[in-house]
């Protein structure tokens, strides 16, 4: 059962990496703007001209 030490160390190391990544992302302002990213990714089609199907139609 002592292999659980290995698994704990590996998992905690990766978890720490993730924690560091989380802290970096918060500190670097990745989540300051939660409004524009989901909209911006809809507009990443390459052609500069806007096609009709790219305009989101809002149905009330």
């Amino acid at each position, binding site marked *: 059962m002592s*292999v659980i030490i290995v698994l704990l160390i590996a998992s905690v190391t990766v978890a720490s990496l993730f924690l560091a990544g989380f802290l970096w*992302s918060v500190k*670097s302002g990745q*989540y300051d703007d939660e409004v524009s990213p989901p909209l911006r*990714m809809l507009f990443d089609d390459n052609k500069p001209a806007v096609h009709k199907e790219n305009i989101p139609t809002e149905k009330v």
Partner: protein
Amino acid sequence: MQVEKFYYDNKSVRMFGYATVLWGVVGMLAGLLIAVQIYLPAANFNLPFTTFGRVRPVHTNAVIFAFVGNGIFMGVYYSLQRLCKARMFSDVLSKIHFWGWQLIIVLAAVTLLSGYTSGKEYAELEWPIDILITLIWVVFGINMFGTIITRRESHLYVAIWFFIATWVTVAMLHIVNSFEVPFSWMKSYSFYAGVQDALVQWWYGHNAVAFFLTTPYLGLMYYFIPKASNRPVYSYRLSIVHFWALIFIYIWAGPHHLLYTALPDWAQSLGTVFSIMLIAPSWGGMLNGLFTLRGAWDKVREEPVLKFMVVAVTCYGMATFEGPLLSLKTVNAISHFTDWTIGHVHIGALGWNGFLTFGMLYYLTPKLFNTPLYSKKLATNHFWIGTIGIVLYAIPLYWAGFTQAEMWKQFTEEGQLKYTFLETVTHIIPMYITRSIGGLLYLTGVFIMVYNLGKTIAAGSFIGDEEAEAPALPKVPETHGKQYWHRWIEARPIQMLIVSLVAVAIGGIIEMVPTFLIKSNIPTISSVKPYTPLELQGRDVYIREGCYLCHSQMIRPFRDEVARYGEYSKAGEFVYDHPFQWGSKRTGPDLARIGGKYPNAWHYNHMWDPRSISPGSIMPQYTWLFDNKIDTALTGAKIRAMITLGVPYPKDYDKIANDDLVTQAKSIQENLKKDKIETPGNVEIVALIAYLQRVGTDIKAAPKQVASLK
């Protein structure tokens, strides 16, 4: 703010797409074959490379690593470039990644059918291929992180976070679970043994589900559902929260594969608790995906792409509710070793992974080839046929699993077991047949898709390099809260990557090496001894033929199991089992205490033709074991490898091991002669009989057992 012109690489996306479809067909055909073999043993064709035990790993590896794997790369290569507003970091690396991955798949198919298997589920590939997988995964990582580092969009969309977590964790899982000591060019023994091996294996196995089948596809869902429906993600905040919660919690759920086994109780409970907690972040993902389509359900009615994605996300929700329930010990006591588990797996596999892959293919092919989909009607037909296929697949298996479990546990009024194991198998054959019809329907849908996509491609013209333009990232970013850390990290991304990798590697090595050098494998049961050379050879035959895929070797502490199989399994019995062979399914009975139960002649006849001993048995024949000679040239190497792993054979035993092997084989040969069976002493069936007669006997053995190991 200079606007830069660049091109997205669609060639790699196309190649991965072709591979996804090809291996999907191959993997599902293999699945159909093994599904049929379960009720039609003649479909094993009495050939080693078509037998269930060898084809099943081909099926699992093909659908997970070849079909879903290429699907991941197809989706990541398409979405990552566009989310980063940058071309893939290196065209050369893209090519190496693609061809390297396909080489791995081809090698996997050839070696697995040839019987070169590690004997560990979803990690069957032997050590040379494990090394190749590591190399190609690193190539993928450099290409992916390079693209992220050279991005022109500073915000990392949530999908990218999922891709990063996938890469890091899969790397860790693969490396830790693939620790093995080779004894020949194509074969090795697991570094871990028994309980330890079981824990590492299912830590790996469940996290493979988490970080290969789930996180990359969640990332892809966050890209493709919004794009296909032209709706923004329902709640971006929810996507961030459930991402971080998911990746922290998932890693601890592995022990739920080992409930009621010889794993310590506290580890089992840990797995259960974290598995229950996992419902929340998983459903966060499902709800986010479904609610994104709020106000766009009329589009779902029209668009096959969205139909596939809706069912995919719904199946994800079902599977991530069922999974935690199966992690509860009371439920697991019924479901473990039954077809319920298989049903659960395929809701996720066919529904979530399969359907999302089809959705991506139907979305991407028209885009890449600049032409509308050939036939929306055919795609819709595929959708309905596939959905019915999933239902016909899963529901019979739930029924079969539950029924069989209850039959196993049934006692008569006199306190005897009511049903033989074989009776419980025969009872669920109709469910097996229905399941294979479900699978056939699902595969039929795939063929419809192949036709549809083929016609689409033929009518279109491929855009190999797609024009794009975007401003470069400003050197000094716009005002954020904490500018110092942002600038520090942005300026040194490569250093950070390297330092992290080095830290993980050093930390890992420092922790692991002393742990393994310390002989912690002190037997807690003094009568448990290493396998004799002949038994070791026999065990390797058992592993090669994939016996563990149908037969478990783990008796749980339940009244019905002890009554049927014997004393329940103790952790100390498995200390020399490199790899462990507890199994996860009982298509056939448990074998943990098979040693000494039947005479040698019984095993001889049973392996030649199971139906001659047990009419109605669905087990394949293994007639080639009666002609194949035991590979005694490898005996010394095997013993040496085991000694390296801490198994207490006498010093220099490898030099005389074959003498003991021949002596023990002769005694079995003579014993068979008494039952009118003439056989050479040097064939594999003799080794297999030696192994089977040894399994589970040590705890009852008198201290002087196994005289040849002085």
